């Protein structure tokens, strides 16, 4: 089965989910789609630029709080404006943070991004007059494409219009990222990943390309974060905590970072695995730790790597 066919089946399944699946599972797909957007951006940085960020929860939190602030402190309700504002905020902060971080690589890059993530978490926690502190901020129901459907019951809203809106955002984010990684910029980014000295000798700016990738990944994470808020109705500082950064790295490894759709598959697996394991055992983190160890030792290519071994499909090589 070709990769295109698998993708088509997956897209049809997502389209058909709300009328087919129980509402509980449809609602579970909402954070999956939000995290999938985040992970498309994170994987640009990791798989294509070779930089593993341990602080991307900063941008998730930034996007989520952008939505919360706009809906509770301003007349803005349009989700289009919220997503745009989150993207702009993500770009601005990523431009500043990335300007320092991308001058370092490997563990130093990881530690710097972790540090910035925790600075933002602390800001959210301590500046409670602005952010609500540990209680967080409410996120009021946004309008979608100008439609004010405030009267619709929340579950119907989330499992209906909001679900398809999120799916459209995910589809658009996927198409855009697909173009980016297959662009001349995407190729130059891979040269920087593979051999920075050789890339420079060919006139390819290492720092500049890493920085652009960092900004794009920050935008994606902020947009994904903005999508997380409305279903919960509230955002709090834990969205920016370092364990959140660890979760999205886990999702990336679980799905397989060498494949374009690997992290998206990882997000899907993580969300449903977490839901299943948490309902069975109280110590779900113990189980997830064991799963992570097993992936690293036995299946470093993640779920997509395993699938390629069992049933070869046209892989989209990073």
């Amino acid at each position, binding site marked *: 089965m070709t990769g295109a066919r698998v993708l088509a089946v997956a897209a049809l399944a997502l389209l058909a989910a709300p009328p087919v699946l129980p509402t509980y599972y449809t609602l579970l797909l909402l954070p999956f789609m939000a995290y999938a957007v985040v992970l498309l951006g994170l994987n640009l940085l990791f798989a294509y630029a070779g930089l593993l960020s341990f602080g991307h929860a900063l941008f998730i939190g930034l996007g989520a709080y952008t939505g919360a602030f706009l809906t509770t402190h301003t007349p803005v309700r349009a989700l289009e404006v919220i997503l745009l504002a989150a993207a702009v905020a993500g770009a601005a902060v990523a431009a500043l943070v990335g300007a320092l971080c991308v001058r370092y690589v490997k563990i130093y890059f990881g530690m710097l991004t972790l540090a910035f993530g925790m600075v933002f978490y602390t800001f959210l926690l301590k500046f409670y007059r602005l952010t609500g502190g540990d209680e967080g901020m409410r996120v009021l129901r946004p309008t979608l494409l100008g439609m004010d459907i405030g009267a619709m019951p929340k579950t119907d809203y989330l499992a209906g219009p909001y679900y398809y809106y999120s799916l459209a955002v995910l589809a658009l984010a996927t198409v*855009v990222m697909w*173009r*980016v990684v*297959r*662009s*001349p*910029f*995407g*190729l*130059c980014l*891979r*040269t920087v*990943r*593979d*051999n920075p*000295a*050789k*890339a*420079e*000798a*060919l*006139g*390819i*700016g*290492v720092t500049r*390309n890493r920085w*652009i990738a960092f900004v*794009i990944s920050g935008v994606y994470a902020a947009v994904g974060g903005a999508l997380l808020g409305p279903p919960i109705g509230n955002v709090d500082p834990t969205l920016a905590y370092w364990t959140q950064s660890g979760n999205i790295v886990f999702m990336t490894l679980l799905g397989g970072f060498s494949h374009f759709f690997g992290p998206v598959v990882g997000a899907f697996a993580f969300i449903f695995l977490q839901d299943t394991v948490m309902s069975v055992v109280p110590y779900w983190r113990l189980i997830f730790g064991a799963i992570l160890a097993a992936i690293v030792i036995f299946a470093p290519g993640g779920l997509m790597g395993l699938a390629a071994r069992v049933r070869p499909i046209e892989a989209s090589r990073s």
Partner: protein
Amino acid sequence: MTGRAAVSEASGEALLEARDLVKDYGDFRALDGVSLSIDEGEFVSIIGPNGAGKSTLVNLLTGVLQPTAGAVRFKGRDIHGIGPVALARRGMARSFQLVHVFPDLTVQETLEAAVVSRLGRGARLFAALAADREVKDGALEIAELFRLGDKRQALSRQLPQGDKKLLDVASAFALRPEIILLDEPTSGVSTADKAAIMEILVGASRRIGLRAIIQVEHDMDIVFGYSDRIVALHQGKVLADATPSRLRADQDVVDTVIGRRRGNP
């Protein structure tokens, strides 16, 4: 075939000029007042025993290192500290002594990256690379010049060592530079393949219109067979800067650098 046939003829000021270069690493002086100039149309070899300062000189000429003192001028402009990226964009390319490839890129992708850089398209985020005929054709031309045409889909890390070396050099040629610096282009290659590689390099140089070639080389057959001029370094200083025939007549250079006595082959 001599090197002079490889590059285009022209007259005028020196294309690349190094004046009184000094490079210190702490208390150790690697280069001590080295001066040389490369004129248009020249094929110049830099030779010397290990520790003579060849690698340091190469890294200074290509902007990787900054000199402690002295200056390097390329096309009349000081290139002090501009770095390898800016220097590549100005028209100087290099290959490395140790093979440098992009392990997870194919031969085709490697050459396309160089062409993308040359055409200034590296910032295009949404253009479809697969549809860019100019990039594709540019990469294909270089691949065929370097006899890598039938290996374009091979991953760089899976190539034999000789082909990796060719790819390293080919990607530098894909920039269509005005001057190229080859750091031991035949190192790690079998004796039988060395001549073939040099013929490929000379042919490619003529085809893309290179204005000058500099090489660092240990193989004296290649040095004397292709060079218009040879610069011999020893302990950080220029021992000699002369044509191959004059160098052979200089016993000091022969003893110090080449290591053969007069009258012996």
